[in-house]
């Protein structure tokens, strides 16, 4: 212990700035991983139905694509089981004067016993009673006895608040099922039936009886299965964020390696003396691994605290993305369990430990008689440049081969592995790259910087092992920025081109309600006719969309007038074409990918009581959601589900007509209907905003990785300075002014930035191809066209380079303040 204090703690305290920089690097790496995990859990963890508050804990949900027939409630209630069957309608509703919220229609009479407020209902009046969640009541300042006017599909009705239900983080209104059916024109139909078992009832038996009673095309699911389904849906999204967060940790690992390597080099004399005094190589190994582990534990502990704070900041962003692209959910609370704290501590410490293994083993190899000489390490590094290049070629080839394989369990595991191999290949190339580039630039450096330029370049090559590690760490962070930048930029451009082809109508309409994935509020039946009769309107395309289940996952089923779609929208097909015959459908690329469909395949899709056998006529490019969409002609849908409401309307105005004027006219004519009427450009802008918001977290993660790498650059430059005190002292003896020393270190920083920038750009380009054509394709099924945003990336690179130079300011000041005499005689 005494030895540890003297040999580890004391030097760490002596180089406090470097110690703090290293700790902070680990802390940030761990913090990002924790934050992504916690905020991801919170964003996906809250799918438990709000109905629990109203009807009690639900044991089963009975659902069917397109809704369930109400008459089955009677059949189910007649089963010889101790269970309650609650009909449910869940739709967005407009509270007149207050905007929209979620409405639950339930059987209030039978649920009264389960209600939190069990005061007696007036049987004459319960159709006008409403329960309001606590959060909604607080936001709108509602209290018991207040009146509410709700607007559904085409009807409006007045309700009196009888219950304020305590429910966490949720906003909703509950009304009687009959009132809900009337509001939404859903007489005889329900969204689902929820089953609550009495205590002691045999769940397996109930499930068997239910399945025997309802049509075989219906689903009988536990709420847990639904949550599990949601988690599955978000799996690819979360995995990609997770992998991005690991990059910061990887960059941190390079820095730990560097810190311990510096420690070993700086204490070579101590190691030699210790070995001479009888400490065996295992003891030396333990000393340095102990140092790394200690840095790991403290850094990780700090990382847990920062991570918890970061999670709160990220939660909003991740929830927005989940709601926009995947499924409707309310973010749950962020819970930092002792297990996740332990996992973070272990991960951070393990990363630190394993990163330190190589330099610690080098330290342990020092023979007792010979203090480790830095020159030997550097000589060996230079000696191995060719071997490393050869290995880099092999590793890069392995990365290329890994990209050829498909996903494993739906995840692009081998794609991720390929990125790791690419980073490893870069690390192996780094020494040759540094040597080569400095050699090429040697004359230029001397011409620009004089003595400072001459020494700056040579010093980096002289400390090749260390320089290579810093360049690799920085290049990894930069490559992440470049690759994700290219991927997002290409994706954005692809989406914009797609939007141009897709959003051809002049005006778009949908019913008011949350614009989130999987929710398609219906429009009143007479609206399309009113639109058609409006002067200036050339053509009206109506769309019916609803969420459906296919092979265990949820997607969107949509029906449109295929004749208009064909004529008006310039859809691009991966294969096949528009559906022409009955019982044919076109599907989006992600849907085809997920279900391994090809043109000509037949899908068996349960629609209410029957099963539709739809032949895939074509697979088309679509970037609206990775859930996937099946699009049929309206006539096909009506054969299986008659009386389907319209959920979206696209209005094409006549040539020469003023679209703005037509829109104003429509707003006037439809003012009594709860609709969102948006001109083309607004919808397009909104789509791009959703896109940009989706990648905000990605940018935040990139920024952290860059910050970690910058800390590393500052740390390493400081290490270079400390390790070259004698050299700096000598240069001062030879007449270097403090400004020249400062300039020399800043030039080294600039050169490091340049080397890392160019290596990082090359790696980034390679990784962007992996991201676009392997990881993204296997995760989400989208084909992205390669469109690198050159100007933006050049700007980002310049910024990173400038920050790297900035990272050299402190080491440069430190170096210029070294007293030449002291520096020369210190060693």
């Amino acid at each position, binding site marked *: 212990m005494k030895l540890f204090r003297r040999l580890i703690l004391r030097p760490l305290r002596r180089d406090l700035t470097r110690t703090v920089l290293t700790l902070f690097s680990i802390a940030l790496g761990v913090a990002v991983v924790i934050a992504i995990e916690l905020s991801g859990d919170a964003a996906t963890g809250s799918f438990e139905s709000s109905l629990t508050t109203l009807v009690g804990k639900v044991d089963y949900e009975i659902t069917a694509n397109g809704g369930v027939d109400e008459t089955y409630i009677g059949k189910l209630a007649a089963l010889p089981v101790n269970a309650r069957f609650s009909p449910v309608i869940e739709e967005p509703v407009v509270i007149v004067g207050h905007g929209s919220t979620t409405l639950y229609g339930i059987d209030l009479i039978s649920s009264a016993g389960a209600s939190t407020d069990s005061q007696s209902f007036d049987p004459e009046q319960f159709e006008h009673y409403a329960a309001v969640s606590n959060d909604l009541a607080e936001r709108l300042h509602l209290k018991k006895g207040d009146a509410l006017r709700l607007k559904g599909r085409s009807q409006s009705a007045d309700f009196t608040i009888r219950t304020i239900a305590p429910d966490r983080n949720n906003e909703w209104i509950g009304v009687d099922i009959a009132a809900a059916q009337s509001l939404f024109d859903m007489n005889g139909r329900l969204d689902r039936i929820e089953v609550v078992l009495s205590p002691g009832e045999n769940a397996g038996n109930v499930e068997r009886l239910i399945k025997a009673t309802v049509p075989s095309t219906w689903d009988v699911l536990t709420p847990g299965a639904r949550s599990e389904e949601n988690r599955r849906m978000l799996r690819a999204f979360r995995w990609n964020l997770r992998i991005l967060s690991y990059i910061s940790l990887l960059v941190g690992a390079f820095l730990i390696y560097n810190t311990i390597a510096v420690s070993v080099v700086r204490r070579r004399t101590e190691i030699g003396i210790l070995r001479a005094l009888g400490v065996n190589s295992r003891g030396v190994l333990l000393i340095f691994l102990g140092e790394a582990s200690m840095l790991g534990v403290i850094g990780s502990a700090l990382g847990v605290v920062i991570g918890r704070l970061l999670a709160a900041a990220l939660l909003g962003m991740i929830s927005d993305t989940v709601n926009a692209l995947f499924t409707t959910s309310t973010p749950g609370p962020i819970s930092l369990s002792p297990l996740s704290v332990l996992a973070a501590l272990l991960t951070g410490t393990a990363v630190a430990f394993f990163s330190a293994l190589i330099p610690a083993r080098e330290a342990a190899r020092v023979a007792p008689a010979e203090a480790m000489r830095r020159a030997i390490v550097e000589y060996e590094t230079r000696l191995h440049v060719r071997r490393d290049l050869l290995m880099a070629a092999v590793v890069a080839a392995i990365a290329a081969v890994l990209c050829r394989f498909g996903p494993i369990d739906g995840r692009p595991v081998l794609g991720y592995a390929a990125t790791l191999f690419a980073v490893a290949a870069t690390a192996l190339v780094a020494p040759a790259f540094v040597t080569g580039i400095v050699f090429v630039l040697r004359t230029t450096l001397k011409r620009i910087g004089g003595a400072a330029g*001459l020494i700056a370049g040579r010093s980096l090559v002289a400390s090749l092992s260390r320089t290579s590690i810093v360049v690799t760490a920085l290049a990894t962070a930069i490559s992440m920025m470049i690759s994700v930048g290219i991927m997002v930029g290409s994706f954005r451009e692809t989406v914009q081109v797609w939007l141009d082809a897709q959003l051809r109508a002049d005006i778009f309409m949908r019913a008011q309600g949350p614009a989130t994935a999987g929710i398609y509020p219906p429009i009143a039946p007479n609206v399309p006719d009113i639109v058609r009769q409006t002067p200036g309107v050339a053509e009206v395309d109506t769309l019916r969309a609803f969420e459906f289940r296919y092979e265990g996952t949820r997607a969107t089923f949509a029906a449109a007038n295929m004749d208009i779609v064909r004529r008006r929208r310039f859809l691009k097909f991966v294969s096949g074409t528009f559906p022409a015959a009955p019982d044919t459908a076109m599907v989006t690329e992600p849907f085809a990918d997920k279900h391994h469909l090809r043109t000509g395949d037949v899908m068996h899709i349960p629609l209410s009581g029957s099963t539709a056998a739809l032949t895939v006529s074509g697979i088309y490019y679509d970037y609206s959601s990775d859930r996937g969409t099946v699009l049929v002609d309206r006539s096909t849908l009506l054969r299986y589900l008659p009386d389907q409401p319209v959920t979206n309307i696209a209005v094409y105005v006549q040539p020469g007509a003023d679209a703005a004027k037509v829109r104003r006219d429509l707003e006037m004519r439809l003012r009594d209907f709860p609709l969102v009427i948006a001109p083309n450009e607004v919808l397009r802008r909104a789509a791009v905003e959703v896109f940009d918001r989706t990648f905000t977290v990605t940018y935040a993660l990139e920024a952290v990785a860059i910050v970690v790498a910058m800390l590393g650059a500052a740390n390493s430059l400081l290490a270079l300075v400390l390790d070259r005190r004698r*050299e700096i002292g000598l*240069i001062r*003896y030879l*007449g*270097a*002014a*403090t400004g020249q020393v400062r300039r020399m270190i800043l030039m080294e920083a600039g050169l490091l930035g340049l080397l890392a920038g160019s290596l990082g750009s090359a790696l980034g380009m390679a990784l962007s191809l992996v991201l676009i054509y392997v990881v993204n394709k296997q995760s989400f099924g989208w084909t992205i066209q390669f469109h690198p945003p050159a100007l933006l990336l050049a700007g980002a690179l310049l910024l990173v380079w400038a920050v790297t130079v900035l990272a050299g300011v402190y080491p440069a000041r430190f170096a210029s303040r070294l007293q030449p005499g002291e520096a020369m005689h210190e060693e």
Partner: protein
Amino acid sequence: MSAISIREVTKVYEGGVEALRGVSLECASGHVTALIGRSGCGKTTLLNLCGAMDFPTTGEVSLAGQVTSRLDDAGLTHLRRNKIGFVFQFFQLLPSLSALENVELPLLLSGRKNTEATARERLRWVGLEDKTRSLPYQLSGGQMQRVAIARALVHDPAILIADEPTGNLDNASGDVILKLIRRAADELGAAVLIATHSAEAAAVADVRVRMGDGRIEKVER
């Protein structure tokens, strides 16, 4: 006028260690002065003062006509850069620079022109014109010290400071170095100040100054 003029100089370090006690010394241009004495006698402190690396506590150090205590850090740097050359016991070549680049370094630091040609000329002067591209690790100890001498003299300094220049060399190499140091005084007119334990080194000097306990005990001419 002496290139190095030291008058009644004392140097007291933090903690009260008195390294020099009232030392006075004159080193003329074209002459070699050897400082002899045991470790801790004040030789290195005196060399530091004569190399414009430090200020005296009291007294006056005048180097090439400039009194160091009247200069700031930039002034001392300027003085070192233009008027003083250093040779060390352990050569102190920058390992990443070639012999030529090492010699060129002081010229680059002072922003002079034709640096490469001048450096090449000085390497020829020490007899290493065929080693210009060699890196320090490719040279013998004697060759490294010759490169160090070329570097110390490349800018024609008025003063050459040499701290144990033969202390790390065999006799044959040491002799070559001492001859070069002698030539620096004779041919280039530098005032050479050597700190040494070696009798051979002291033998080439015009003046031998024996030091003990921070004082000059004896001066032999």
